């Protein structure tokens, strides 16, 4: 969260602990915190990347990506250069009590993404590697599967109204844009 949150660009963050953690680390107008619609993070980010020019980082999870695997095919087909999908693969649904997902067993998300047609898939294990990878690919189409262990951060609920989150985020999207 810290590594991605520190970068310049728009961030679409998955619901539950990821959004709560990102919010508590540092709340910015460039953050879109999902509060519902599990599975939609990679799709929201794709629509945003196709609609405008700024760099879009999506913080997704293994459980939610598994809920919307078709998204990988659509992402591969359009592959916008300003789109970066980061899947935090902790092998479980940590927001709901750490029930295991299929990536704790045989399922390989990087393999699925590659087979869906995404050419640049990186599998990373450390924060340093993630930082280096994001530095190296500042404005190219990228998918990262970030392997991690399950942890439950002590992060409170986001006390912002959904419409405020969207309005503030849209202001950030428009900022500096030539009409």
């Amino acid at each position, binding site marked *: 969260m810290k590594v991605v949150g520190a970068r310049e660009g728009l961030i*679409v963050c998955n619901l539950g602990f990821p959004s709560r953690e990102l919010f508590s680390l540092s709340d910015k107008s460039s953050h879109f915190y999902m509060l519902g619609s599990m599975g939609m993070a990679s799709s929201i980010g794709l629509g945003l990347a196709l609609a405008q020019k700024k760099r879009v980082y999506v913080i997704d999870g293994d459980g939610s990506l598994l809920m919307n695997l078709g998204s990988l095919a659509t992402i591969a087909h359009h592959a916008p250069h300003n789109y970066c999908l980061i899947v935090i693969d902790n092998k479980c649904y940590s927001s709901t009590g750490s029930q295991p997902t299929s990536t704790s067993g045989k399922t390989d998300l990087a393999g699925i993404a590659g087979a869906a047609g995404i050419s640049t898939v990186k599998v990373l294990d450390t924060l340093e590697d993630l930082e280096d990878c994001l530095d190296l690919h500042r404005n190219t189409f990228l998918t990262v599967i970030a392997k991690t262990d399950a942890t439950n951060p002590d992060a409170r609920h986001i006390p912002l109204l959904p419409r405020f989150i969207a309005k503030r985020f849209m202001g950030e999207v428009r900022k500096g844009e030539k009409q």
Partner: protein
Amino acid sequence: MNPLIDNEIVTIMLEEKIDFICSVPCNMLAGVLNLLHPLPITHIPVTREEEGVGIAAGAAMGGRKPALLMQNSGLGNSLNALLSLTKLYGLPLSLIISQRGGKGEKVSAQMPMGKATPNLLKAARIDYVRINKREDLIKMRRMIRKTFDNQRVTAILLSRKLWDETY
């Protein structure tokens, strides 16, 4: 097939400045989808309607005017995202829906969702309009305007009768 109707539907979408379309195919919408290809709008065929709702929400936040073209069966595949994403955050989305499961429907599996669609929309508090004949298309235009003037999710139910009419 009725190219006249297909053309009118696409013209209304363009004139109302819809510039970002996600779609899941339906044979009733086939003519409309064919017309989209050469136009200067973003057209994203999606794998599932809910995915289209997600992409359209991102596009709306990116300053675009999105529509989702789908069959009414797709409403069932997308209801949660429509409510807990698009509606929750106050984003606009025009749902342009081919309404199956009505009179003369040959596929029995279309009947349950056909009957439930208006009630599902009412329960979700999504404004909708039925388009049964060519003269009704003005209502489609009004509904699209309402969508983007008021940042709303709205639905346009296109009846098979619309295409079956002969002129």
